[in-house]
């Protein structure tokens, strides 16, 4: 054969990486932009169909923009809304990477929130440096345990996680409603289901009250950023992440490679649930300061869209979460200013996902946006 020097030259050549191609650019930039634009257009059509006049439509989209990035308060609201979406979205993304279609973030948020609230109001004399992290931890652990029920069932019996997690979501609402009626949980003097308030020592402190006392952005944003970095490291730099991804792409190959499939499923679900639980804890410790029925307000379902839009990549999830946070914050403004129901936002979000998950569809609608028709 050849001598060693040319051999090592050959090996060096193989280490060169191809420059990111046009296809990647289209996939990561063009498709999402088109998706958002088309979704907004269809949203406008739906408003037209429900007898909203053109002027109001214009006003609502203006309000959407102003309410999301138009002012300091808008940006604070956008970030505040993005925190739980990104956290739960990271959890779901992690699950998707491991081949688990966990749509139980909603239930995990509820359970995590309950646990965080309980810890949050239960220890009156604890210093915040212990109390707040403990409350967050309680949320993460509860969410993780709740998710691992579905993980265990999948690993042990093959029960599909889509069905089990949905059933756990539905059960979690009932659990919440039961717990909010318990004497030690309910706020004294109230007959409606509201929990006791979280003690100041467990609250996630607001960050911008010096500028304006109404700004709600809280320290959860640091939790969010840390989580993005940590999940990225976990997925792409560690053995565990390699195992998750291998098992998600091809479970047979993972088994062949000596990876422990059942353990991966349970751990991946638990990690995903812990992140969702953390999202729930963030809501109760940073925004609401107590638990009420429906405090999860569908974040777990929006997080599915965030994870899909972010292509199950931590950085993508961060951007997707910011976008959805902006839509959420802007949507509230839109409801106030233009009188258009905020439910329109969930339609727009669903449409964005349709186009993201079916790039062929976007290509079919905008053939001129792409270099070549999908010829695979």
């Amino acid at each position, binding site marked *: 054969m050849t001598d060693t020097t040319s051999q090592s030259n050959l090996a060096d050549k193989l280490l060169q990486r191809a420059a990111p191609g046009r296809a990647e650019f289209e996939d990561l930039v063009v498709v999402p932009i088109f998706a958002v634009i088309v979704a907004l257009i269809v949203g406008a059509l*739906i408003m037209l169909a*429900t*007898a*909203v006049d053109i002027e109001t439509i214009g006003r609502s989209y203006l309000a959407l923009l102003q309410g999301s990035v138009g002012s300091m308060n808008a940006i604070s609201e956008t970030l505040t809304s993005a925190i739980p979406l990104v956290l739960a979205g990271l959890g779901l993304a992690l699950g998707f990477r491991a081949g688990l*279609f966990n*749509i139980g973030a909603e239930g995990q948020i509820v359970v995590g929130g309950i646990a965080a609230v309980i810890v949050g109001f239960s220890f009156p004399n604890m210093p915040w440096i212990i109390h707040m992290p403990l409350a967050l931890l309680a949320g993460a652990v509860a969410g993780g345990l709740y998710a691992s029920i579905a993980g265990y*069932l999948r690993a*042990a*019996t*093959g*029960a*599909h996680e*889509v*069905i*089990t997690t*949905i*059933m*756990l*979501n*539905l*059960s979690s609402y*009932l*659990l919440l*409603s*039961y717990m909010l009626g318990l004497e030690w949980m309910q706020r004294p003097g109230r007959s409606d289901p509201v929990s006791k308030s979280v003690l100041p020592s467990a609250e996630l402190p607001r960050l911008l009250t010096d500028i304006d006392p109404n700004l709600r952005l809280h320290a959860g944003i640091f939790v969010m950023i840390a989580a993005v970095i940590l999940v990225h490291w976990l997925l792409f730099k560690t053995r565990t992440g390699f195992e998750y991804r291998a098992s998600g792409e091809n479970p047979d190959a993972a088994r062949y490679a000596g990876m422990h499939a059942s353990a991966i499923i349970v751990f991946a679900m638990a990690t995903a649930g812990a992140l969702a639980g953390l999202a729930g804890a963030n809501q109760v410790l940073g925004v609401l300061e107590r638990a009420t029925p429906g405090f999860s307000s569908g974040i777990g*379902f929006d997080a*599915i*869209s965030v994870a*899909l839009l972010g292509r199950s990549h931590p950085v993508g999830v961060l951007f997707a979460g910011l976008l959805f946070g902006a839509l959420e914050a802007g949507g509230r403004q839109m409801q106030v200013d233009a009188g*258009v*129901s905020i*439910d*329109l*936002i*969930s*339609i*727009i*979000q*669903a*449409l964005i*996902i*349709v186009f993201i*998950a*079916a790039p*062929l*569809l976007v290509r*079919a609608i905008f053939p001129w946006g792409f270099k070549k028709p999908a010829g695979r």
Partner: protein
Amino acid sequence: MTAASTTDLAPDAKIDTHKARQARIYGIVLIGLAVLVAAVFGYGSEGNATFGLSRPRDPWVIPNLVVPAASFNYIAAAVLAFLGVRQFMRGGSRWSTVSIAVGFALATAAFLVWATAGKSFSLTGMLSATVVAAVPIALGGLAGVLSERVAVVNIAIEGMLLAGAFTGALMGSLLGGWAGVLFAVLVGGLFGFILAALVVTYRMDQIIAGVVITLFVTGVTSYVSSQVFSEYRFLNNAPVFRAWKIPFLGDIPVIGPVLFNQNLFVYGALILVSVATYYLFHTRYGLRARSVGEHPRAADTLGINVYRTRYINVTLAGMVAGFGGAWFTLGSVGRFDENMTGGLGYIGLAAMIFGRWHPFGALMAALIFGFADSLQQKLAIVRTPIPSEFLAMAPYLATIVVVAGFVGRSRPPAADGKPYVKE
């Protein structure tokens, strides 16, 4: 050449089969149920449980069923214990499935007797409510069967039910009940067609497509509901289909009120299940549809249009789900509420799995879920020590148990969930 050694067999080659292990687990479950029934339901029961079978105005009145609660439950516990021990000792027999089914039925009966002890309770009424509650689940399950038989996983059933409920309310309010049903079916079919387009033509991941359709329908219906219905209430005030009593059959005690004095949706579900069974298993197009679900490439080589078959069947599935959705409004309360389907579409999918991808199987499974639902509703009225929230979880927990306990043992269509790419 030497023949391989086949003589020195291992003397005691005891083989640990899956069946044997499963039989042992069943045995343990049954024994556990026996203990529960004896200790809680038997020990904790006093007096008689009275089950009403007919109403005084019925043409043929049959006497109420009076059960001495404690004795009944001790006997039930004894039978359970017998079944459990037998299962544990002589595992792997072909009676495993029967035993566990009988066991669960007995335990449920014991629970019912315990909860009713010292009171009375209309059994016929509960069975009738069971059938009614089973309708959307059965139709959801049937929609699942129709689309998964052509290998399209249909997580969108929840959304299709919701779309049917919404359309039924809206068009029912505007044009009357029958028009409401018609449009509900059409809109359900439209979403079926959209699902087919997304997964067949645009090769979107089937689960994502289903979830997204459900999110979209939830968004649209909630939006219109809060944007339009809240202001124009007459748009959300549809007539409700009343029960039609079938002459003669409807007068049979117990069976009559349960099966033959119901509304359009109950009869419709029974007819659709029968028609679907005939279609799938006794017609040419059914055979072709199933071949597409099992081995699409084989079907393709024989000139069967895989894509068209999937489009047609998934659209039909959507129509069935749309009809099932109309039940929520036109068959029940007459008005649409946000998210009123409450996850029944997913329970329908569980019914499909439990029913082994067969229309009648899905119907039977739906009846079990319907029973769990009507049981919890009745028990919330009869006072029990169990908090109502936990009773309300019963259908969800039953779904989890069913999916966990049976999914591994029933075989889905071989190509289920896999896109087919024509070369």
